[in-house]
């Protein structure tokens, strides 16, 4: 009996404490001294927690820097964080930030599914979603008015990798693009699928032969069968879209079966992750990765103020994640998205509401953000100044080899030394 009561009491207390925390909600007074509330929704638990927590850390640093410089239109920026392991949770959490915390801008969301779910909520309330991780085309192709994406879309990313393969790598291999044999291997979530679709479409357009296309679940623990099948197709170039574990496993397995094609072109996420080269070591030398510009040399940022900001971000991020020898591109993008929006876009807003912010986001034009490209949004909210760079692992570091203007090294190891003879 007593146990009964005790358990009930604990439950009731838990509930009241929790709802109590929510008190003082929805305070949206017009006083400009009020802090300006922004939210950050990332997967902090579940399968995507690793990059999610890095992104959140990056947004926190951006908010800190903006606050040191006086905040947004004289108001301190207050960050509310949320954990969304899946799209359903993302909907609820977006609701909490919007309806209870009264945030006007949300930074997110890493996973494309989460971005679409969040957009469903924010759109109804006129809250802006600044997307710096979700790559699926649908995020900016769905007619949302208040979704702004700083990074490139999946189809563009895959297309950029494919185009480089057809126009630059084929000549290096002394193979005519029409005779080049390309394999596409991608993980099967929204990210891998949208990038692979973009690559496949581009290759078709350029008349390049895709000899095999395979998808797999990113929790795969043995890629032998996949690699043996790939080996049989004898591709010259492997175009792969992976997360980190499967990227490492793929390279390992390719090596074990002596099945590495002459060139491996990764597209974002796994193959750009600092842990990729750290784990597989010297064999990573020469593996390409198409991604947003990442780990650009600090001199690239010629504007002294931006140079300082990027340096400060990298410094603070490394302190927070001492194990990493590079800042991950996901975190760089999360920082660029939040910092640019708070520092460059919002000050231009006549009013800090949906209409004012949209106008500011679309009319603000920047030649440079901390991500290395500019800010120039189309009516759909997509940043058309965003570009995908072709990078290559060289000596454990990501080196940009294309386009020319961001290039900081020459292509090495084509064909790869670990390629099958």
């Amino acid at each position, binding site marked *: 009996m007593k146990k009964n009561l005790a358990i009930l009491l604990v439950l009731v207390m838990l509930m009241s404490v929790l709802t109590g925390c929510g008190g003082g909600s929805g305070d949206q007074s017009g006083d400009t001294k009020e802090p300006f509330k922004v939210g950050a929704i990332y997967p902090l*638990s579940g*399968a995507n927690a690793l990059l999610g927590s890095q992104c959140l850390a990056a947004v926190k640093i951006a908010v800190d820097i903006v606050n040191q410089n006086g905040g947004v239109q004289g108001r301190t920026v207050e960050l509310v964080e949320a954990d969304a392991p899946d799209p359903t949770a993302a909907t609820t959490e977006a609701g909490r930030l919007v309806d209870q915390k009264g945030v006007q801008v949300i930074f997110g969301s890493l996973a494309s599914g989460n971005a679409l779910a969040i957009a469903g909520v924010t759109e109804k309330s006129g809250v802006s979603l600044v997307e710096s991780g979700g790559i699926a085309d649908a995020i900016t192709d769905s007619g949302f008015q208040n979704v702004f994406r700083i990074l490139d879309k999946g189809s563009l990313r895959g297309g950029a990798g494919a185009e480089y393969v057809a126009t630059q790598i084929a000549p290096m291999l002394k193979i005519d693009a029409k005779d080049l044999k390309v394999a596409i291997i991608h993980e099967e979530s929204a990210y891998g699928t949208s990038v692979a679709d973009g690559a496949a479409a581009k290759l078709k357009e350029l008349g390049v032969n895709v000899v095999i296309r395979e998808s*797999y679940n990113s929790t795969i623990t043995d*890629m032998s069968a*996949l690699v043996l099948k790939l080996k*049989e197709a004898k591709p010259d170039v492997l175009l792969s879209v992976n997360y980190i574990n499967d990227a490492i496993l793929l390279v390992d397995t390719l090596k074990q079966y002596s099945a590495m094609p002459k060139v491996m072109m990764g597209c974002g996420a796994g193959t750009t992750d600092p842990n990729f080269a750290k784990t597989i070591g010297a064999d990573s030398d020469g593996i390409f990765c198409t991604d947003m510009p990442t780990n650009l040399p600090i001199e690239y940022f010629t504007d002294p103020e931006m140079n300082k900001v990027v340096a400060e971000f990298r410094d603070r991020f490394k302190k927070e994640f001492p194990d990493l020898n590079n800042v991950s591109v996901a975190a760089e993008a999360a920082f660029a998205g939040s910092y640019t929006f708070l520092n460059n876009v919002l000050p231009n807003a006549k009013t800090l509401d949906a209409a004012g912010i949209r106008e500011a986001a679309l009319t603000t034009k920047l030649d440079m953000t901390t991500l290395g490209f500019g800010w120039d949004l189309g009516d759909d909210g997509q940043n058309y100044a965003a570009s995908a760079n072709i990078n290559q692992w060289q000596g454990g570091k990501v080196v940009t080899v294309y386009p020319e203007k961001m290039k900081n090294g020459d292509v090495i190891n084509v064909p790869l030394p670990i390629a099958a003879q």
Partner: protein
Amino acid sequence: MEQILQVLISGILSGGIYALASVGLALIFGVVGLVNFAHGEYLMLAMYFAYWLYNMAGMDPYQSLLINLAIMAVVGYITFKVIMERVLDSDHSIQMLLTLALSMVLQNLALMLWKADYRNIRIDITNDTMNLGFLTLNTPRVLAFIIAIGASVLLYLYLQKTFTGAAMRAISQNGKAAQLMGINIKKTYGLAFVIGTTLVGLAGLLLSPIYPAYPTVGASFSTLAFIVVVLGGLSSVPGAIVGGLLIGVIESFAGYFAGAAYQQAAYFLLFILVLIFKPNGLFGRS
């Protein structure tokens, strides 16, 4: 032909790890009658222990094997004493749910303690291969296979040849009768649970040089181990070994012929087919 053989061999090698991950579950199910959905989480814990021992003490997973197994045995014992012992007589659905909740707790505990980072162990032999004629075999996978099958066979012999083993078999056949014959039921249950968690821990250790540890790494192994155990006829240790190998081979062939996207679906399909034609599993007693 060479390719097909290669695919078969790689399937058998993975199958060895699956078998080892599953025999423990079969034992726990057979003796204790407990469906343990947190089974995969012990694999995850063992991978983390292997990582920390590697990272802090510089011991590779093979060197730290015994220490790690001892830790896993202790962890298994604690789980049994604190949680499982209390629900031995409860309804099956309560037990299942309890293990589901336990798996939720362990996964999130790992996330809180060690963050979501992927913990890789790279040792010299991670990418070593041995060549048998035209066949290429990855050394850690071969080692894992040999140790896994060895441990499973040892478990089988233990059940067949020792008194405690006989007691476990007696309980799994008829608990009441065994009790009447003077077997200390609770103690035997505890022992079976500890052996079961230690064995799945061993599977995790063997996997650790080729696959990273992270909080949800065990989840897919829980379901897989269940499928294996059911295929093998629930409480049969040899059945689980054969079931594990079978799943490995099916997965490998499905990946090669149909595509990697269908690997999982293939063994689930096989599983349903088996149940339609042999409702008690491939090796089950009717």
